[in-house]
């Protein structure tokens, strides 16, 4: 039946094309970012690109304040998300009774699905004033507020991937430890968690990767002041992240101007950053999985 063979061939080609489209899309995105950002390197004064001020109106295009802003907020988020996320993951995977797990897991999933603009909205309306009054600082729109919200955004990723990693630890590990006289508590921290180490590291990297890429939340609560953060006090003053810069200024920028190209440059930096983080995280996952397969076979 030649007609059927022809149809089979066509469908196979379509399916193969869809598979390869992923490569095409990434290449296209990279290409466009490079194309639209490279004029920045020739148009902008190199001194300003590596200076200390982001003030486009006067031609200051340094990315350092923005990088610093992203860094401060993300680090702050990490400090909060790591202990809480890890503790929650361990609790769900190792300690919680079944009924508690049935409640906690969906709740964490809901948090993961909340639009970032909703969190930013509440952050702006409720959290920021709270921070201002509680800490007695001039404004509640600070890196700290952003860090709190970003922690909330990273935690679902950290919890769900860590929990998977903990679940994947073979039961025989735990049983062996218990048989040797360890308490369940000791087993958790000396056997199970170390065994799930690489999965947990992946979870944290992916969670923080999501935090770095966040736009709306930080735009709404970090105050949007592109000031180079110096010292820990910066945590409680306004900052501006790279993502918020793009979102806030792209609308008002003249197409083709230096400012426009520098914004694309920031986008390129973000693209490369996420590329590096995700490649490291996923190679860890692949290596861990292969090791686990060897162990379990």
């Amino acid at each position: 039946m030649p007609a059927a063979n022809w149809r089979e061939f066509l469908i196979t080609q379509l399916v193969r094309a869809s598979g390869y489209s992923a490569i095409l899309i990434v290449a296209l995105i990279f290409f466009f970012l490079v194309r639209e950002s490279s004029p920045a390197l020739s148009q902008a004064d190199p001194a300003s690109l590596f200076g200390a001020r982001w003030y486009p109106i006067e031609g200051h295009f340094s990315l350092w304040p923005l990088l610093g802003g992203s860094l401060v907020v993300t680090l702050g988020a990490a400090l909060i998300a790591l202990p809480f996320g890890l503790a929650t993951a361990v609790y769900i995977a190792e300690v919680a009774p079944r009924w508690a797990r049935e409640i906690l897991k969906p709740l964490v999933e809901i948090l993961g699905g909340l639009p970032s603009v909703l969190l930013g909205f509440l952050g702006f309306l409720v959290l920021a004033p709270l921070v201002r009054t509680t800490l007695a600082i001039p404004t509640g729109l600070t890196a700290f507020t952003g860090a709190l919200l970003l922690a909330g955004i990273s935690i679902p990723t950290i919890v769900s991937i860590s929990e998977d990693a903990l679940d994947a630890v073979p039961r025989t590990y735990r049983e062996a430890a218990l048989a040797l006289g360890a308490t369940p508590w000791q087993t958790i921290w000396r056997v199970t968690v170390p065994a799930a180490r690489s999965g947990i590291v992946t979870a944290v990297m992916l969670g923080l990767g999501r935090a770095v890429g966040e736009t709306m939340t930080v735009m709404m609560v970090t105050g949007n002041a592109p000031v180079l953060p110096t010292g820990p006090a910066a945590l409680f003053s306004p900052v501006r992240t790279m993502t918020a810069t793009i979102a806030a200024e792209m609308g008002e920028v003249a197409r083709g101007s230096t400012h426009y190209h520098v914004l694309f440059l920031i986008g390129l930096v973000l693209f490369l950053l996420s590329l590096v983080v995700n490649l490291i995280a996923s190679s860890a996952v692949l290596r861990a999985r292969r090791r686990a397969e060897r162990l379990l076979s």
Partner: protein
Amino acid sequence: MTAPNASPTPARHRRRVQRLGYAFLTLAAVATVAPIVLVVAHIVVQGAPAISLAFLTEMPRAGMRQGGVLPAILGTFWLTLGTGALAVPLGIGAATYLAEYAPESRWTRAIRVALINLAGIPSVVYGLFGLGLFVLFLQFGTSLLAGSLTLSLMTLPVIISTAEEALRAVPNSFRVVSISLGGTRWQTVRRIVLPQALPGILTGVILGLERAAGETAPILFTAASFFLPRLPQSVFDPTMALPYHLFVISTQVPEMPVRLQYGTALVLLAFVLGMNLLATLIRSRARARRTW
């Protein structure tokens, strides 16, 4: 029965440490999860008074300070639909390729690396790309089309990974039997594998679209407009959208009634949670009816 030089911690002490440790973990978990409940409850309580049939079906008035949010609701609806129309066929096709056809080769690994990369790109960078390619280069302008295309690219990795997982979950024995009865690979996929994987795929699609519906950054420069006199008439028109609307009215409109802000937030929340609930229902119903 202890060795002369060892001093083991007495069992009582170990048990106390464990009890404290468990308490600490429980507290941490509750502290992590309680805010979620508070957030949802707060939005529901504050926003419910604003919800009325008028709010949901009328156009806004007085610079958004009165009236309803119909154009934003419709805009989000159309954007989500458009995203699905583009991302779902391409995503399922790619997942089928990865799960059923792709050999273990350098090229297949390249596809996977590309997908990992795509999954991690910040949403605002997708917005930039959408601006550069769809709005400017292809000259679609700020439009429903450009926005949907941008959102569909962003949603693609999510749909592909959940669809691939759903396809791989179908037992391999089905495939072997189908082939042994004279089936081609596509016949096997179309008649057995895809139908069995469908609930899982559907769950992934809904979760992916739920995320697309709530995103603001990708549509900031590609589709969204704050003040539009009328609803979009074609895919080339810009549109309002719930997340963008919430962003603007809460941060950039002076004298915006708080009640309406919460009302808008509640509509968005309901949209997102509704999709979440739908996905969960499909998932549990499929699990119950599964014969393998």
